[in-house]
């Protein structure tokens, strides 16, 4: 049922983009997070950080204008905006681990009710790509938003009581944005903040392992195109 009503990856990104305050310094991870920048208006003055040593990262390079010395952490040719800066990887991670980024948005495989995150390896997989910068980013960002599908391909909850996948960091997640809901990690557990259009709080609870705190009225997400 809910699987039919779920938002697209682009819509999850659009909703997550609304979480970024004007002027925020933000790191975006692989997957859905990488779609977010397209939904952030230029006038918001959000400044994107890439852990390979860029601040003020702009959109992907247009075809024919790629410069392979100017790539993001996903190896994709990007651009730099006026006011941007280059620095070394060690300085880039000084920014992540040192608490200098206002928000990071990462993909997730599992999030626990305490805000633990697992996002870098499926159990039993011989090789994931590796850890990369995820652990430093998860530990250090002032706010950590996880964007992901609410359930696995087999319909199993990804928001769980305890992560069973290899962990990225403990008690690091602030907010989860999925195709069904926006959920905040608060003292004592998880608070449902918004539901996707046409989805009820009960629908969300049904595919979420831990018990959600649900207010008398839960607003629907506002999205540009539904």
């Amino acid at each position, binding site marked *: 049922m809910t699987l039919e009503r779920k938002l697209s990856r682009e819509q999850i990104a659009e909703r997550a983009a609304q979480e970024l305050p*004007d*002027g925020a310094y933000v790191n975006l991870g692989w997957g859905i997070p990488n779609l977010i920048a397209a939904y952030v208006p230029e006038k918001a003055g959000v400044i994107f950080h890439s852990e390979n040593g860029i601040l003020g990262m702009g959109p992907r390079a247009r075809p024919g204008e790629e410069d392979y010395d100017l790539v993001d952490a996903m190896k994709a040719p990007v651009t730099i905006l*006026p*006011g941007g800066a280059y620095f070394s990887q060690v300085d880039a991670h*000084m*920014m992540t681990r*040192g608490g*200098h980024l206002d928000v990071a948005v990462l993909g997730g495989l599992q999030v626990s009710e305490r805000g633990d995150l697992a996002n870098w390896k499926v159990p039993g997989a011989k090789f994931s790509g590796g850890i990369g910068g995820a652990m430093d980013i998860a530990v250090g960002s002032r706010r950590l938003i996880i964007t992901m599908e609410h359930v696995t391909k087999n319909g199993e909850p990804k928001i769980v009581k305890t992560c069973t996948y290899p962990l990225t960091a403990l008690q690091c997640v602030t907010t989860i944005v999925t195709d069904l809901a926006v959920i905040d990690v608060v003292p004592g557990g998880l608070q449902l903040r918004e539901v996707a259009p046409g989805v009820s709080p009960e629908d969300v609870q049904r595919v979420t392992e831990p018990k959600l705190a649900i207010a008398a009225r839960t607003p629907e997400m506002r999205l540009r195109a539904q």
Partner: protein
Amino acid sequence: MNNKIYPSVDAAVADVSDGASLMFGGFGGAGFPNELIRAVGRKGARNLFAISNNCGTGEGELGVLFKNKQIRRVIAAFPGPQSTYFQQQVEAGEVEYELVPQGILCERMRAYGAGIPAFYSPVGVGTEVAQGKEERSINGRRCILESALGADFALIRALKADPLGNLIYRKAARNFNPVMATAAKVTIVEVNEIVPVGALDPETIVTPSVFVHRIVQVGGAHDA
């Protein structure tokens, strides 16, 4: 967009209140945030915790705040022979101070800025700076445990800023300023010049904007 540009040094330090901890850039007369220091003097906040390489040259630099008796506690590497007011107040028991080797002073700031709560270092082993510190042998070398050092405010001086807060410095006036920018909740910079966004080459920015919260344009570096 956040507006980081403040109309005056006084506006920029308006929330420096009693008991605040402050880092002050500068070394050997170069790169001191003298306008911001004087503004803290006018503001009159007391009982301050100062972190600085030195402790003033007569009434200059940090001497302003010692003369006003605004500072209660200091961490420094080289108070300096001309730190008259500081020395008087230490003798009178009015100021507490901790002496730290200079490289460790800035390394502790960097650790704070880099999210490293503590580190082991061989500097100071067997000397009076090791007193009260945990000692441990690492790969056969005696080391002591040093902790990260942060502050409520960093007051620094740069040559140019853009409105986002990217900074470049001038010659040896760079010194402690870039590392202090990374180690404070609020970094306030006084600059000779504010240039438009995009005017600084992204390859040559020394302090990227993420570390800078308030910018004030003041006069040249050595005006009185």
